């Protein structure tokens, strides 16, 4: 039995004006795998996420989600096809509380769409799932805390929770542990493993401990191209990778 691909990028290019930032990028992410993207600063990792998630338009090439072309669809349509993401900079509904953020993230996937004839608080399944998510996120004490008052680590966890809540099968996380202490980062890694279970996961990460702990497979993105993809073992032993990237940081 062949494993199907959750995501497939073929010859994707993106330029901002004259600058070609993504230059013919090929990537296959298998269903249910945890795929980590590494690469130096400015390599185009966030840009790649923006292209996949519909935040930016692709200049050339194709992106498929479970076999459907998704490049140049608006972000909400990409989401409805089963993909969600977090951002490198925390991106939540800042004026709402934790539980309100979770409820908002659940509304569409629970099928409520743009309804204006029913009450949100009257939807028991939304309430149930929101509380369940809060428990899994360890945020039960902060349910009615406004998001802007949470600690940074809590905000990041909530963002992962909201991403999962939207019912996506493929989840992109852009540097979920950036700016965190060792212990906080460990907590987040465990949280990611706990929250994402069966989902396909694509994570951009700088912290190599996190990378090797989380990854089923790793891809290395340098100057807008994937120069290698493989298991953590293969990547560790890949000479090109060591030269281009790892060699400069790990000695």
């Amino acid at each position, binding site marked *: 039995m062949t494993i199907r691909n959750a995501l497939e990028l073929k010859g994707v290019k993106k330029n901002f004006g004259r600058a070609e930032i993504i230059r013919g990028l090929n990537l296959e992410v298998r269903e249910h795998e945890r795929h980590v993207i590494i690469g130096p600063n400015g390599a185009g990792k966030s840009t790649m996420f923006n292209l996949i998630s519909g935040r930016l338009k692709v200049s050339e090439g194709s992106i498929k989600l479970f076999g459907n072309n998704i490049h140049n669809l608006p*972000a*909400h349509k990409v989401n409805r096809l089963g993909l969600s993401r977090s951002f490198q900079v925390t991106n939540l509904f*800042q004026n709402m509380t934790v539980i309100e953020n979770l409820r908002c993230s659940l509304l*569409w996937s629970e099928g409520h*769409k743009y309804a204006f004839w029913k009450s949100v*608080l009257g939807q028991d399944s939304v309430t149930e799932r929101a509380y369940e998510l809060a428990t899994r996120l360890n945020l039960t004490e902060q349910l009615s805390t406004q998001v802007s008052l949470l600690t940074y680590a809590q905000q990041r966890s909530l963002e992962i929770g909201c991403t999962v809540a939207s*019912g996506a099968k493929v989840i992109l996380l852009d540097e979920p542990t950036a700016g965190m202490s060792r212990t906080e980062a460990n907590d987040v890694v465990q949280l990611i493993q706990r929250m994402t279970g069966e989902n396909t996961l694509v994570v951009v990460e700088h912290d190599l401990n996190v990378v090797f702990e989380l990854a089923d497979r790793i891809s290395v993105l340098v100057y807008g191209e994937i120069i290698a993809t493989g298991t953590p073992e293969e990547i560790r032993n890949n000479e090109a990778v060591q030269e281009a990237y790892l060699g400069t940081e790990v000695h």
Partner: protein
Amino acid sequence: MATNTAAGGINALKLWPWLIVPFIAIVLPFVFDSGHTINLLSHMGVAIIFALSYNMLLGNTGLLSFGHAVYFGLGAFVAMHLLRAINDAGGTGLPIELLPLAGAAAGLGFGVIFGSFSVRRAGVVFAMITLGLGELVHSSSLMFTDFFGGEAGLFGYRDEAPSLLGVDYAPSRNVYFLVVAWTLIAAILIYLLRKTPLGWMANAVRDNPERAQFVGYNPTIVRYIQFVLSACFAGLAGGLFVITNEIVNDEVVGQLQSGAVLLGTFIGGIGYFIGPVVGASLVTFLESSLSAHTEAWVLYFGLLFISIVMFAPMGLVGIVHTQYLNWKAGGWKGNTGIRLYILVSGLVGIFGLICVIELSYHYFRSWDPGAPFILMGISTNATHLLPWLVSFAITIIGFGLMLLHGNPLLKRHISANSDGGKA
């Protein structure tokens, strides 16, 4: 089910304003029974619905509109044409109580059409489009005189229409009760809309349209539905306006009307459901009472608006709410006197400022600046030095005490207390 009973308990607590306010509204015309006051109260009701509909855009969805009068005004014109048709048919047709529904339908219809291109983008683009649309509709009102009645406007007679309840709407008090009923219905509906998935996502889109997309929502559609519903309620207010005024002219679709609703909503407080209620009532009241007392009333409006924008962006309701929270948290303990002192000195300063403005207005605007006029109950001559000196002195002393003495005193008191708490 446990959550349901908990919610029920909270709801019972939150229910009382919904009983008290209508009760006061019903009692008021028996206390103040002059025709003028009752008309004023009716206008407040209309303004409240209009402002609540406006805040569905500004407060709930984060859309700043400069042309909301378009939907109010077009609703009013459509309702007026219907009323005239009823008059012409010898008083048969739609009962007068339901006339606002015609306005609402018109608001909805124009909201569907104009909204489709207004809400493509939020922010500045949206604001500019609404401004342009407002101008467009207002200038067409002077071109298409058949529909808009030209400069004279259109008349209709509310007592020459059938009544569902058998009420005679010639007396303005009966009209007022109809206004109260519609205001209550509209307020309840607008309040409940905030509790729905659409209402929640309107807030979400206001806070972060991008995140809303990544949980599956199209921000443009959220804004669009919200816009259409808001236009519908604005039209309802316009239809009600036809009943209270029996005349509409081009002013109802004009920029002044659009500006007034923005002012009122903001002064009341866009972050609170009752903000627009308070703001619209106050602005309507000031408009009619100030304009009778002083020529400078527009200036006072501007000053009030600017001070709210600069010093209390959460509006008057916001000021009261923060002070209330502060008081409840014990923040007033031992410094209530200082707070009162700040309030009183501030009021003295404002009093002085009003005197200065009135003097200037008289001096620069009247034919004969030397003619005596009544200022704060005292006959004054604006060409003499003394009244100017006294007015400036009061202003400076009032604001001076507040800013240089009261405020630092309060700050020191609070920090001394918190230090004491730590020690």
